């Protein structure tokens, strides 16, 4: 992924291929191929719409695929929970489970009915944005998730706000000082940060900054009634951990993508014209390297939302990941489903946005022949 490719022509396609790689099934088809596949169908009005507004057609098509994908995710989650040993009634009652009590709970929640019926009923509710009530606590899932999702997005937002500009900036700096000391330093430090597991980075920060330094509060629990400033202070450590974890990936991708472009002929021309390197990187190279950078940024943004359960546990931060894990432990299906769908939606949406932005950034993809 970080290999500095030489050939300029092959470069774009190569990077595009890489960018599409981790996007999940539908975006994995290169956009042109997917569009061509649909165009081949005898759909008169659709073809015309596609012809006149290729971009809008693409977005509509992607949105449609996303809905299908979300549905598939909900089926997989449902089957997954069904396959786990022990149902909600048994796990919830634990040691105090008597056959009568288990039967009571099953009857109350309708767990004694066939799985298909239960799934269809749940789907019916979900289609009307009614995710039901948590089986374990009886609280409204939507309400609980609103709280938790807010916390997760708050942390992700600030982590992204720091890490994305930092990563892109450092990437450009690394290209500027390519193969010299600053480049090597940036590379070694960021590689080091990404090689350490995130809980370890977290523990190190806790030990030195919270326990020995006493500079920030720990645990990073946020709760109702906290002021904005207090919340910001609370997320300093988890935010820093997340920045360290996602920084290297984006930075190295930026560096690789720009280096790729830097070897093309027009950059050489710019250099021969006597432009200074930083200006070449920022004005001429970076715009042409946007597509892969956008993709890797999107992937990392998605990670900041859906993949931070470990950081949440280490820093005692009440986010979505922790909520979902709690629910899985007692097989609380409505909560797991809702969390799973939100995670999937965030992931799909961010990837789709990245795809569309990459196309917008690349005229050759914007106007496919």
């Amino acid at each position, binding site marked *: 992924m970080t290999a500095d490719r030489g050939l300029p022509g092959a470069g774009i396609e190569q990077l595009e291929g890489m960018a599409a790689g981790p996007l999940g099934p539908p975006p994995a088809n290169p956009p042109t191929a997917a569009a061509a596949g649909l165009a081949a169908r005898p759909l008169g009005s659709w073809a015309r719409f596609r012809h006149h507004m290729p971009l809008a057609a693409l977005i509509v098509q992607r949105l449609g695929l996303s809905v299908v994908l979300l549905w598939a995710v909900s089926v997989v989650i449902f089957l997954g929970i069904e396959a786990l*040993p022990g149902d909600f009634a048994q796990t919830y009652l634990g040691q105090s489970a008597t056959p009568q009590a288990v039967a009571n709970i099953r009857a109350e929640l309708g767990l004694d009915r066939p799985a298909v019926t239960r799934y269809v009923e749940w789907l019916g509710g979900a289609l009307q944005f009614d995710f039901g009530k948590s089986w*374990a*606590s009886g609280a409204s899932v939507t309400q*609980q998730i609103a709280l938790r999702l807010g916390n997760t997005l708050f942390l992700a937002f600030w982590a992204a706000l720091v890490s994305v500009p930092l990563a892109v900036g450092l990437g450009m700096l690394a290209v500027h000082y390519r193969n010299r000391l600053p480049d090597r330093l940036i590379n070694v430090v960021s590689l080091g940060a990404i090689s350490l597991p995130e809980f370890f980075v977290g523990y190190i920060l806790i030990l030195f900054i919270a326990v020995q330094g006493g500079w920030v509060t720990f*645990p990073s629990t946020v709760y109702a009634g906290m002021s904005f400033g207090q919340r910001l202070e609370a997320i300093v450590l988890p935010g820093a951990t997340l920045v360290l974890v996602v920084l290297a990936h984006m930075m190295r991708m930026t560096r690789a993508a720009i280096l790729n472009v830097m070897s093309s002929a027009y950059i050489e021309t710019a250099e021969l014209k006597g432009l200074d390197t930083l200006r070449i990187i920022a004005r001429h190279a970076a715009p042409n390297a946007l597509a892969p950078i956008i993709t890797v940024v999107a992937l990392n943004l998605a990670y900041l939302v859906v993949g931070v359960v470990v950081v949440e546990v280490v820093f005692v931060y009440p986010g979505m990941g*922790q909520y979902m894990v*709690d629910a899985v432990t007692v097989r609380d299906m409505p909560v797991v489903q809702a969390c799973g769908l939100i995670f999937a939606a965030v992931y799909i949406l961010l990837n789709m946005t990245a795809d569309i932005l990459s196309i917008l950034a690349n005229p050759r993809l914007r106007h496919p022949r």
Partner: protein
Amino acid sequence: MDSYLKYLSREAAFGRLGRREFLGRAAALGLTLPAATTLLSSSLLAAGPQKGGHLKLGLEGGASTDVLDPAKCTSQVCFVVMRNWGDTLIEAHPTSGEPVPALAESWEASPDAKVWTFKIRKGVQFHNGKEMTVDDVVATLKRHSDEASQSGALGIMKSVGEVKADGDSIVVSLPEGNADLPLLLSDYHLVIQPGGGVDDPNAGIGTGPYKVASFEPGVRITFEKNPNDWRSDRGYVDSVELVVINDATARTAALSSGQVHFINRVDPKTVDLLKRAPHIAIENTSARGHYVFIMHCDKEPFSNNDLRLALKYAMDRETMVEKILRGYGKVGNDFPINETYALFPRDIEQRSYDPDKAAFHFKKSGHSGSVLLRTSEVAFPGAVDAAVLYQESAKKAGIEIEIKREPGDGYWSNVWNAQPFCTSYWGGRPTQDQMYTTAYYSKADWNDTKFLRPDFDKLLLEARAELDQSKRESMYREMAIMVRDEGGLILPMFNDFINAVTNKVQGYVHDVGNDMSNGYIATRVWLTA
């Protein structure tokens, strides 16, 4: 020297001198460590509790699925939460385990222990300002006896026949006599709620020393002082904040950095490191929970009592306590009761590691080949290591033990109570009767050693209804010897509850009943400035 010691004690009592520092200086004066510790605790108690302050607890065992409904409380966090806002009719004494009055002032039983009358305290207010009545008590107990309530105390309440109000008292009638009924009513689920909590089980309204101020399940729960508390000997701090910290390292860090005053479930592996911090004290309490190796008495080859005895003698208990519990526990004697239970039979000889006896019984059993032991990390912390230690000590007696490591997922349904020889654990029970009834009564579902003895069952039922304590004690002694010498239980160790506090926390009460000072941690301690 005496006056200097007094000065030191006073300084320590007011928190100006750390506990460790006090002990160090006292030792310099030639005082032995136990003597200095006693002196320190007596002067601390003499200084009396200080009021005020904001107590912060960092606890493991909370999840977003937690609720305030006492019937559905299972987690450690819920347990402490409930102790803060609610009261039971009866409490268990922290050291003797005997029943002591709480919302019930006094009680008496009929001679056959079948009809019990509890006099309910008057003038106690709920947090909502309503006065507690006998009807509230009856409604509470009835709710927990109802299958539909899904109460954790259902197992206890099933043995209760009828509950009714009678003037200032309630009358409980049992189908069979039970001398332990008062202790059973001290079960933490049986918190008295207005109207029994039938209308709104999750209201969190009770008679306890603290009112629930905010409740974010799995995150944070806060409490404020109940100004109308009916008791003056508890609830010293003004407010309590409980933060759920399920990660052991995070918990330790929160305590070390002074962000919380108390943490539970300190990992025995790191407790010695934590102890080194000057402002932290470890509070470990002898407890009833135990780690066990269990054999099915009704299955080959364990149906042979000589083989069972051989395997019991092959267990090196001291090494287990030292290596697996790091000294935070006590050796067991192959019956599930220790000195923390009321009526503990004290004079039963301690079984110790004896390779010769083990070899003798092994030979007598006629068993040849190895013995298969199943284990898993989920059986208890360090279970796999314990199995390997056991393998080594048994090898010296010429017994070959084959260890099979089972997956953690499904261990409790596929291995425990199903396979003939495995590792497991038991939490304690409030009474000996409860412990034996749960796991050694022939009809019990969880009789995990398949101990099927009509004479034991008979003794158990007789002891349950026996109100004469000395007679009862001798019955329990006989039962303990039966389990120890003929049962399928190898009990190498009782594990301590290990908690840690900062030096600001005073008055920690070691309670044998359950972890975290039997859940009363926040209501019993006070903070020094």
